[in-house]
């Protein structure tokens, strides 16, 4: 029995959050002698860090530009079979979630997605966010079938990574034979908006803002802080109230400002995964049960439309 970790690929590199999967694997393993393998889904991703010297790294002999989900999932299932993997884990990102569920079909395994907590009761139990973050679903694996799981980024501590220079572990390259020849083009948006990376304080806004015009309130709020930026949940960008470069969450940006203020954001797990890096999280929401308060350091139960104007009035008098 072994554990297979799938490295996530981001901008032609291994996503640093892959380190969190080693922590998750340790919890699953129980026994430290359980072999752990790291699989890199393409052979042109830069390996920037070494996670565990005892881990065998398997590289799929295919460039990312030939990525195709059915071929990759078949290859992973076949590798999993060879190394007798009982657990296959990857990050819950748009890249990895594209093929991970298919691995479960090819490998006849359970598939549990968006997992944020792993524990052993009588059985292995995986907790996953659901119902827009309002409830956690606990899934107990009661049979002997293998398990494929996607782990929400930011849920586990990063396993201490070292420089890739002392990569003393074994690297095996496996060539795959795929029936589908695919050529993928990666499109990097030219509008390199780095405002969310540089800001000390980010004001996040949810659907509750109601309209694009109402955003003036948020901009006025943000203006008060010297190094600030305004961000939004996905739906705010879908409505065209903010550009997609300002979207925070799994399908958008992950942010790490000094302070994040969530205004009228309910706090779906998709959004929360993007704000975990913020040092201090403050939520303003009129619903005291909004899931955003579960991850906030400070909570203010108020309607933003009355609270923010009053705040602006106060600071003008200072």
């Amino acid at each position, binding site marked *: 029995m072994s554990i297979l970790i799938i490295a996530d690929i981001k901008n032609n590199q291994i996503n640093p959050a892959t380190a969190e999967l080693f922590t998750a694997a340790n919890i699953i393993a129980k026994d430290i002698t359980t072999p752990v393998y790291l699989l890199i889904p393409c052979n042109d991703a830069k390996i920037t860090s070494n996670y565990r010297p005892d881990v065998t790294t398997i590289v799929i002999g295919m460039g990312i530009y030939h990525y195709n*989900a059915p071929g990759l999932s078949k290859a992973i299932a076949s590798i999993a079979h060879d190394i007798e993997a009982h657990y296959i884990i990857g990050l819950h990102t748009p890249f990895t979630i594209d093929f991970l569920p298919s691995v479960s079909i090819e490998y006849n395994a359970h598939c549990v997605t968006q997992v944020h907590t792993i524990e052993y009761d009588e059985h292995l139990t995986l907790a996953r966010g659901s119902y827009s973050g309002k409830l956690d679903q606990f899934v107990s694996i009661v049979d002997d079938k293998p398990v494929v799981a996607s782990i929400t980024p930011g849920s586990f501590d990063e396993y201490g990574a070292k420089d890739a220079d002392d990569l003393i572990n074994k690297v095996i390259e496996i060539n795959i034979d795929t029936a589908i020849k695919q050529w993928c083009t990666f499109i990097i948006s030219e509008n390199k908006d780095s405002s969310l990376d540089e800001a000390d304080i980010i004001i996040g806004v949810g659907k509750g803002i109601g309209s694009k015009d109402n955003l003036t309130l948020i901009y006025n709020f943000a203006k008060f802080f010297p190094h600030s930026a305004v961000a939004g949940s996905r739906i705010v960008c*879908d409505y065209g109230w903010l550009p997609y470069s300002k979207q925070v969450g799994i399908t958008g940006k992950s942010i790490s400002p000094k302070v994040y203020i969530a205004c009228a954001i309910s706090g779906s797990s998709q959004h929360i995964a993007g704000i975990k890096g913020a040092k201090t*999280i403050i939520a303003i929401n009129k619903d005291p049960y909004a899931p955003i308060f579960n991850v906030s350091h400070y909570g203010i139960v108020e309607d933003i439309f009355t609270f923010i104007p009053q705040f602006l009035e106060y600071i003008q008098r200072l």
Partner: protein
Amino acid sequence: MSIPYKILVCIKQVPDVNAKIYLEKTKPYYDEKTVYVINRYDEYALEEALQIKDKGLTHYIHTISSGPERVQKALRRSLEMGADEAYHIVTGDDDCAIPYYVARCITEFAKKEYDIIFTGVMSQDAMNQQTGQLIASIMGYNYATGVTSIQTNDDEITVTRELDAQTSMQYVLKIPCVVTVQSSSTMPRYPSLSNVLRAKKQHIDIIKPIMSSQVQYHSFYTIPQKTTECEFIQGSTDQKVVELYNILHRNGVV
């Protein structure tokens, strides 16, 4: 030649996002006042299909949904938006049906009949984000997930899928294929009056599920644990304003 395309759109009916959710022992439930709607992402999936129809490339959009009788309201809505036929797989009132089971029911219905099968990228409630991938793998179809734009070209389609705020990926899928659709700036349409009138007369076909929902794993629900002890700022609005200013000051942003 695949034109006219045969298209299937998989639809889930979900409680409105603002619906109050209760826990009865360890299962979620909603009260009678709850408004049910088409899953947001499935509406975007249906919109992509309807845009293919607008171009005259199909007159064959079927929608399918599994669940209790109430899901027929969502199917009716899909007809009003412009779908041609609707199919209802009758199952119990189980909001948290296992994705593998739903995928098996749909693939059993779809057989090899369709050129493109659309789903939303995930459901708003269960958020499993795997049913589309499972359908594709069971059928042995190529697929793409999180798609925000589609260009059709005879027996292949070009899809753009989003990876993050900065990066997307574009490639060609041979038909037959499965596409899961992410929300985007392409807003799903409102039903036209003529479609609403037409949909009134349409019949929704009832399908029996191919197998009983086998329990694959045990599952229970709880209120999420706090990962942070949230300090709620108390007092009047004025006092909260002052306290927020103090917190921001302590954190060095003012």
